[in-house]
């Protein structure tokens, strides 16, 4: 199947203008809430700087902090596993489940397991995975993937959810009352929580000095799963480490304010050791992170705490929807993470931006996202991943701009036939003209005017 490029998928998304406007307004509302919350803290910019520096320090000392975390977690009675890639991660999780002979598990939100495509892996092996985050359960019913890392079903309206629940949970057809539908999901999920012996959670922060980890949710679904289960498996990327428990005082204040404008997530749960009779596992996953860490321009993309503030502020994301990014993590941060996984498949993503820079401004850990988009463009084009026509056009333009005489000549002809910029030619195929006009060509260029009036 041909995977749609970001531009192609966006065009389809925008074809429904009403839904696009709704999507844009809804996420802009979240951005506005984030602005308000951040402006209530006089120390906001200092907090961002501190968070960025803690992560900088962590990245520079990652091996030692990982080993410290492992030792402390083991001392707490937690079993620690190392996975070099997605496949190893999935194998480890499956082997733990198999050992207990279970056929079903509950899972709270974990973008890492999305990145590793764990659900598909387990389902192929006969395991029934139940996503317990409400938004994730909705997209799971629909056999879709999350379109947003904090608001997984933000591409859907309440009518869509009503229809989905009618099909899967037997709610009355046409009922789209959010409170009613949420209650239906609650009853459905309670059963799953009570049945499941194994629970998987993600990890927001793992504290090296204590070996504990913190999981942030608004629905309490991670806690419900972890506390009711016999086996708790926490899956995390290796960059989720923070050195000290006191660092949480920085990150927990930034995370929810950046994500939704809340002062703090409803549940910020600390897991330190298994309760009596319970097994607790942590899977530490690399999956390309050490490769990214070795790239000077891109290493600090690993500071990301997955708040999605860059999604909500991005004027492109708001008008193209998360699925147009064809990656588990969409939005501006996804566009700088994705080429690390597969340059060719994700060559379009660093170009799905105007480089407006708003993403870098909202980022709570000050990742220079828009600059990294620029660096990825250079990297990908240098590797020869540009379409042949683009290379030719760019080479022609570079040659013309290096030769003033050619430029003046081309300009004189170009203004008459409007083919001056290679991409502005009006041949009926140029996308500029689909919904826009060009300026009326002036009689004289500025340089011609200057010659006849000033010299």
């Amino acid at each position, binding site marked *: 199947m041909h995977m749609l490029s970001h531009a192609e998928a966006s065009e389809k998304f925008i074809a429904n203008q009403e839904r696009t406007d709704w999507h844009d307004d809804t996420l802009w509302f979240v951005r506005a809430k984030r602005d308000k919350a951040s402006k209530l803290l006089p120390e906001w910019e200092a907090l961002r700087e501190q968070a960025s520096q803690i992560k900088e320090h962590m990245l520079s000392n990652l091996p030692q902090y990982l080993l410290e975390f492992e030792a402390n977690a083991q001392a707490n009675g937690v079993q620690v596993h190392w996975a070099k890639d997605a496949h190893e991660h999935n194998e480890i999780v499956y082997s733990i489940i198999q050992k207990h002979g279970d056929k079903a598990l509950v899972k709270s939100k974990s973008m890492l397991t999305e990145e590793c495509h764990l659900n598909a892996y387990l389902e192929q092996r006969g395991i029934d995975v139940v996503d317990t985050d409400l938004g994730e359960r909705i997209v799971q019913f629909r056999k879709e993937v999350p379109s947003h890392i904090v608001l997984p079903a933000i591409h859907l309206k309440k009518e869509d959810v009503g229809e989905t629940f009618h099909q899967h949970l037997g709610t009355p057809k046409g009922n789209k009352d959010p409170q009613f539908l949420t209650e239906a999901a609650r009853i459905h999920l309670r059963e799953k929580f009570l049945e499941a012996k194994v629970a998987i959670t993600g990890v927001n922060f793992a504290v090296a000095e204590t070996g504990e980890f913190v999981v942030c949710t608004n629905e309490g679904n991670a806690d419900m799963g972890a506390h009711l289960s016999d086996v708790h498996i926490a899956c995390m990327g290796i960059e989720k480490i923070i050195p000290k428990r006191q660092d949480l005082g920085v990150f927990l204040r930034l995370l929810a304010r950046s994500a939704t404008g809340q002062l703090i997530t409803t549940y910020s749960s600390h897991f330190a050791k298994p309760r009596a009779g319970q097994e607790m596992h942590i899977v530490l996953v690399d999956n390309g992170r050490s490769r990214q860490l070795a790239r000077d321009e891109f290493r600090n993309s690993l500071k990301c705490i997955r708040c999605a503030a860059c999604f909500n502020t991005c004027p492109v994301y708001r008008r193209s929807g998360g699925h147009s990014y064809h990656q588990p993590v969409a939005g501006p941060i996804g566009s700088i993470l994705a080429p690390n996984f597969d340059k060719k498949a994700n060559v379009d993503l660093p170009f799905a931006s*105007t480089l407006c820079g708003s993403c870098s401004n909202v980022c709570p850990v000050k990742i220079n996202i828009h600059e990294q988009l620029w660096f990825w463009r250079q990297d990908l084009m240098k590797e020869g991943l540009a379409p042949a026509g683009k290379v030719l056009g760019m080479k022609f333009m570079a040659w013309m701009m290096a030769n003033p005489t050619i430029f003046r000549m081309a300009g004189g002809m170009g203004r008459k036939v409007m083919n001056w910029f290679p991409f502005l030619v009006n041949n009926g195929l140029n996308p500029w003209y689909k919904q*826009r006009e060009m300026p009326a060509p002036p009689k004289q260029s500025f340089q011609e005017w200057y010659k006849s009036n000033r010299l």
Partner: protein
Amino acid sequence: MRVALFVPCYIDQFYPQVAIASLELLEKLGCEVTVPAQQTCCGQPMANSGFAHITGGCDTNFETNFSGFDYIVGPSGSCVLHLKEHHPDAKIRASVYEICEFLVDVLKVKSLPAYFPHKVGLHQSCHGQRGLRISSMTELNEKPFSKLTYLLDLVEGCEWKYPERQDECCGFGGTFCVTEEAVSVKMGQDRIQEHQANEVEYIVGADTSCLMHMEGILKRSASNVGVKHIVEILNAHA
């Protein structure tokens, strides 16, 4: 003070009135202005498309034309930002200014003999705003300021308005405007709608590329709202 006027390639070809207004304005304010005749382009269209590795000839041509001046001044935040961030020559990087920041920070303009009795909507182009910090940004927890509104307030008769979303991108984005045509146009339409809700006569900004994009959409819909570069207003007289 020897100032070289940098006229971005598409302004030279399509918007000569913006360059003329820049020249006249700088002269009016006492600058000795030179227009290097063999200038072409800053190299940004190639670099932002991922081809910074082939802009060497363009960079050299820029350096040949613009070396030896106290200041290089141009009416485009985007092109100036590109030069400041990516031109190989340190002297070029240090002496290049966007014209509004030059007026405010270097010339320290306190008054202007300008008259423009119209209501305008201010478009804050991202590279000038976020890149060059011509104004404060709504994302940051910082004291509001704007070199653009400071200058517009010196113009007699000019009333300016921000759109509802004060600093959202218009969607031009260089080659983005054609490679991501659907999103680009939608972003432009949304900006325009907010300006129209304010009943402005012109959309005004410090980057002609953004204005060209919005003008293209305005013209297609036969709107009576026009676009103007801010220097055309600062240079307007009765």
